[in-house]
């Protein structure tokens, strides 16, 4: 089994359940890659350093963090510190995690969104010194040499931009999707603090249990805010060759096993794959 699991980057997140579950599966011989986000821990570091977080909105209404030179440096440092927290907790579970920093390990490359348009009320702006990026390429070699050394590859939400020679912050979910496609993973699991894709966020019993690329518009219509980006990442993984991706809850006891064994929202690359999974589930 080769899998990719993505978790959030909030400093308060209780990652113990996930890391124990992941460590158990790694020790049993499964090959995993752990990708994490960093927005929560970045806010904490920006505040400590007295750097105000600025948000900007794209012409089509997407609200994102503005990443100038100072924010980039803080985002990178916060993301890597969170990687160290996860690697320390994994070491305590008997698993060696190899934190792969993209400028050193060249795991992920990014294209910088150097020119952006933003709107503020009725006014519109061109942003030029933005340092966030989109993942453009993955090199699987460093991941494989980490496995060969008996380690779990652990990736912060960063990718290397040859032009600027800097690590840019990228969307962790889409980085996980690009990695999953590049290593031909059997499954990608995105864990967050919601049960999965919800038809109606106010109704806890409205979890969408299954979906596939064939009915993707229906899923997209339900998604709100961050879930839109998670769905985009899921589609990129499925179109990148994965048979299955799962959106599931990180707050249960064995969150990874729960997701792999059918919990949360199971999203398949085709209707037929979805049907055969139901036949198997019986």
């Amino acid at each position, binding site marked *: 089994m080769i899998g990719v699991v993505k978790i959030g980057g909030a400093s308060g997140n209780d990652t113990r359940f996930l890391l124990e579950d992941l460590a158990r599966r790694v020790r049993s011989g499964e090959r995993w890659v752990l990708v994490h986000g960093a927005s929560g821990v970045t806010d904490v570091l920006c505040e400590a350093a007295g750097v105000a977080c600025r948000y900007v909105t*794209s012409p089509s209404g997407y609200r994102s963090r503005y990443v100038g030179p100072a924010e980039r440096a803080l985002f990178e440092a916060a993301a890597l510190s969170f990687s160290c927290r996860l690697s320390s907790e994994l070491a305590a579970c008997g698993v060696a995690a190899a934190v792969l920093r993209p400028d050193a390990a060249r795991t992920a490359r990014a294209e910088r969104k150097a020119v952006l348009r933003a709107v503020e009320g009725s006014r519109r*702006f*061109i942003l*030029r010194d933005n340092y966030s990026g989109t993942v453009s390429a993955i090199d699987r070699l460093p991941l494989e040499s980490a496995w060969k050394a008996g380690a779990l590859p652990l990736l912060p939400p960063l990718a290397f931009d040859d032009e600027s020679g800097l690590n840019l912050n990228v969307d962790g979910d889409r980085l996980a999707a690009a990695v999953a496609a590049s290593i031909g993973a059997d499954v990608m699991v995105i864990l967050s603090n919601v049960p999965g894709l919800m038809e109606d966020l106010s109704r806890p019993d409205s979890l969408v249990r299954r979906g596939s690329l064939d009915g993707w518009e229906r899923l997209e219509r339900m998604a709100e805010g961050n879930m839109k*980006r998670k769905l985009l990442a899921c589609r990129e993984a499925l179109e990148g060759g994965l048979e299955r991706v799962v959106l599931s809850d990180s707050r249960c006891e064995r969150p990874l096993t729960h997701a792999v064994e059918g919990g949360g929202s199971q999203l398949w690359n085709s209707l037929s794959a979805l049907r055969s999974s139901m036949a198997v589930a019986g």
Partner: protein
Amino acid sequence: MAQVTCVVCEGQVTLPEGAMEGEILLCADCGTELELVSLDPLTVEEAPQVQEDWGE
């Protein structure tokens, strides 16, 4: 109110109150989108078209 010359049609474009570097101005005469690249000296260029929406 400060004015600047449109680089496409040379019409006069009025700056909004508190205009900032990087702001996009619309030339009322020819409809071109201009980027206020510098306030001192007052300079505009045609605003670049950004390919994808960076939410994607």
